[in-house]
């Protein structure tokens, strides 16, 4: 297969990239409230869409690359290489750091393509499809609850689970990475909207609490 996406000089291309919410970075900085709630973009993560029947041979081969394929809604799996989110019964999203991408010296996409082989299913490089927001702090859940109707109470939404849902009326993946930290994966075209929505939701926590 021709690898048309591999640039001759990766570093030159890397410097020319702009992430979907890069223009909001200064606003994220000023909008974050130290010790209360913080928002930042984690740009250019490597993301690969995988569709395969979990129980098939190809599913087992792909699972050996990703460190398992999650079995049910909300579950995630992973190893030191990547985290895999459940999108549907036969659909998964593999998320890894930027450096895992083949164009930057990594081998994640190629490893997944080879694991699928000629079997039914698909492995698609979706790194440009979504960006990543990290919302953290003791008020992070309050901010999310303004635009997300899932039960986000820790007793229902536990650390290490991920759900596809709507946040601020747009579809996004929501991953809980810690007691007070979340990662949100909106599509690139929604990054501006969702970034501003979250900033708006954070604004009240910059003012002294009204008793």
């Amino acid at each position: 297969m021709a690898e048309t996406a591999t640039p001759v000089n990766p570093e030159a291309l890397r410097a020319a990239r702009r992430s979907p919410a890069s223009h909001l970075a200064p606003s994220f900085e000023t909008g974050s409230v130290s010790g209360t709630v913080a928002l930042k973009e984690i740009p250019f993560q490597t993301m690969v869409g995988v569709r395969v029947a979990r129980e098939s041979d190809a599913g087992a081969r792909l699972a050996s690359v990703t460190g398992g394929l999650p079995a049910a809604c909300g579950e995630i799996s992973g190893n030191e290489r990547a985290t895999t989110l459940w999108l549907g019964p036969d659909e998964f999203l593999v998320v890894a750091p930027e450096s895992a991408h083949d164009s930057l010296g990594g081998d994640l996409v190629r490893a997944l393509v080879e694991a699928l082989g000629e079997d039914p299913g698909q492995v698609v490089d979706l790194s440009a499809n979504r960006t990543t927001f990290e919302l953290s702090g003791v008020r992070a859940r309050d901010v999310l609850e303004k635009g997300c109707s899932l039960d986000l109470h820790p007793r229902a939404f536990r650390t290490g689970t991920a759900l596809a849902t709507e946040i601020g009326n747009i579809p996004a993946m929501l991953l809980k990475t810690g007691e007070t930290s979340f990662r949100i994966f909106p599509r690139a075209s929604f990054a501006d909207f969702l970034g501003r929505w979250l900033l708006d939701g954070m604004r009240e926590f910059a003012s002294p609490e009204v008793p």
Partner: protein
Amino acid sequence: MLLISCPNCGPRDETEFHYGGQAHVAYPENPDALTDRQWAEYLFYRDNTKGAFAERWVHSTGCRQWFNMLRDTVSYDIQAIYRMGEPRPDLERPVVNNPAATTPEGATK
């Protein structure tokens, strides 16, 4: 707002779903043999049930899977949710403590 229990994801807001029309409309076994009227009726004609109606839904912003639902078109009560390919569940509700609803022997409906 309906709260719909996706068979894969559990209860979610209605806004995460899209409606897919009447369920169990079988594709004609031999479409070539149909007249234009029969073909049009297969394509466009659907029941307009008052009461329990079997319909298809898709969880668009969740797992993106289709499923069937038995919903009362008057009360919006969701009576059953079942997977694609499964037959419509037979939900003849037993009449409890309602003498007016029992049919006297020999009476015609």
